[in-house]
């Protein structure tokens, strides 16, 4: 099993320490780690288990229960396509399929260059502008299949 570097261990211990006085600290700790590193691998869960006394299996269960948490690193740009009811009836499935086709990854996967992760989301509360896509917090309203290639190209250009 891969070993974490000393700095990462310290950061995780510090995050666990933030919620020492909470009765049920697990969700907060995991959220902070997810935000900090973009994923929560087993080595990290072991430290959280040690600090909180919650078993690794239970932590793993929580991480796999909520789609917000990830076990593998996410890409630099996380493309979240809303597939909630409103977006879906307005053609969100075709939009996410187009992203899939261009990036050559399935929803939940990350491109090999680590640039993009494609996520299928359930209602993000932007039904008025359906179908909506959110990329690192920027919301793209009323998406159509035709908009997809340009958005991907723009992000790629930024990195070039």
């Amino acid at each position, binding site marked *: 099993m891969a070993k974490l570097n000393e700095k990462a261990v310290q950061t995780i211990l510090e995050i666990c320490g933030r919620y020492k006085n909470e009765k049920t600290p697990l969700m907060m700790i995991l959220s902070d780690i997810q935000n900090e590193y973009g994923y929560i691998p087993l080595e990290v*869960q*072991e430290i959280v288990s040690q600090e909180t006394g*919650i*078993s*690794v*299996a*239970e932590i*793993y269960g929580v991480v*796999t*229960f909520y789609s917000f948490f990830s076990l593998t690193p996410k890409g630099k740009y996380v493309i979240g396509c809303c597939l909630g009811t409103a977006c879906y009836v307005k053609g969100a499935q075709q939009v996410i399929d187009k992203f899939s086709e261009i990036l050559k990854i399935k929803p939940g996967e990350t491109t090999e260059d680590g640039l993009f992760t494609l996520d299928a989301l359930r209602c993000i509360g932007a039904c008025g502008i359906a179908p909506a896509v959110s990329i690192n917090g920027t919301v793209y309203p009323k998406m159509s299949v035709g908009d997809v290639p340009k958005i991907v190209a723009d992000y790629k250009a930024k990195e070039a």
Partner: protein
Amino acid sequence: MSKVNIKIEGVAYQVEAGMTILEAAKACGYEIPSLCAFNHGECNVGSCRVCLVEATGARGLVASCVYPVAEGMEIRISSPKAVEARRRSVELLLSNHNKNCQQCEKNGKCELLHVATITGAKEDKYTGVQSETHLDQLAPALVRDTSKCVLCGRCIARCSNAHGLGILGFENRGFRTFVSPAENRSFANSPCIQCGQCVNVCPTGALMEKSEITKVDAALKSGKHVVIQAAPAVRAALGEEFGYPVGTPVTGKMIAAMRRLGFERVYDVNFGADLTIMEEGTELLHRLTEGGTLPMITSCSPGWVNYAEYNYGDLLPHLSSCKSPHQMQGAIIKSYWAEQKGYDPKDVFVVSVMPCIAKKFEKEREQEKVNGIPDVDAVITTRELARMIKRAGIMFNRLPDEEWDADIMGDYSGAGVIFGVTGGVMEAALRTVYYKLTGKEHEQIVFEAVRGHDAGIREASIDINGTVVNVAIASGMKSAKVLLDEIREGTSKYQFIEIMGCPGGCINGGGQPYVRSCFLPNEADDILDTYKEKRAQALYSEDERQTVRQSHNNPQIIELYEKFLGEPNSHKAHELLHTSYAARERFR
């Protein structure tokens, strides 16, 4: 306790406030079919929906295992609505279940099949998509087959309650949920101690010991000299598989049955237990008098040894270097006995019948081999022995009581018998250590303070010639952890500690017959609270019947040392009877 008035099917009863409907109904003489509820709320998540009833004051039907009674509540168990709902719940469980019941070793003891029969559920009522399933048979001791799992959560609860370990958890969500060690790992690659407590509580065949019956069959067919040896705790529970009341010792019939299965020799592991006491007692004396690592901790329980290697690598020098009794005896069978018979050790096949599934793991350890030959070749559980006896058509109840083979290791002391219960190894060791230090027997044979039958910690102080020896006993890793953390912090006041993996010791091992009210109609309602005590009593009474009560007075043990081993802890004894340990990474 305050009482509340309720009605079941229109009849008035008074029951304790705070009870669930399920418990209250049982007190009033109704057994509501249920599945996930277990052992006084040890597991109580109301997830399976099998125990639905109608109750006034509730919206719709309620899960009786989690819904508390209230003053004036009227409960309907047999209303058409409740009966149909329970049947549907079971039919839904069956719709996502691997129904190859004939091939399932849990057949006959399956609670899902039991509630299906009672509710009249049809197995093919609903058809549809099946959940993805996972099969783990990598670990030597146990198998996980999620195609049989009903997601009741009993195994998860038991692992945490008995050991504080929490190896198992629910993974994923919704239809994709399954029970597994983290990362859907095998038990073999996670810090599971392979004790089998989860197997003992599983209602279906999702968690089972890894059967070695076919291995034994092959050996019997091969023409090898196949020797069988049975641990003390087996005789205290095997009878349960054949309708005897819990706590009936069936030693004589068990011996007769094993002989009829075709084994060349039928030996009692009690002899190995006596041998363990000679070696371990001597080791303790050395450590006490020559300044060795103290406290010394027993090493008979392979579940506990696994726990130590995963979690307390720094404390391994505290463990006695002694192999466990059946491994010691296996080594003696393949050396001393084989030599006397003129057999090549390679042609001798040793089968151990154990109350334990971790022994299946233990026998595979590299450190448990002599010149590359394993001490023990196959380990079957009490349950597997019962299956073999039934398969052979042996009418167990009609067997005569027979005696162990007595050629070289038939004698055993009462001290060996009580190894099967928590505190037993300690008591047996104290009888011998006292004698070795003082030259005389302790006037009291029974050390009451160390006796028990449950999890938790017990302690005692014994004055030996003015030297006070402090001892402690723990079973279940939750209790053991308390004693181990004391050692780590340097605050432990003990010289000798006995630790057993399973709560209550071997009598409650992961290979013992399942204890379920629904399959034991003649036992009292509280059998889940009393079975450990009853099994323990079966062993204590056998100790009392023995004329020799101390290991060092066993004549064949004395003879073994005179003719073969020399002294306890001699060079030869070390070669055959001692082992070593190594810290292990928790997630490999």
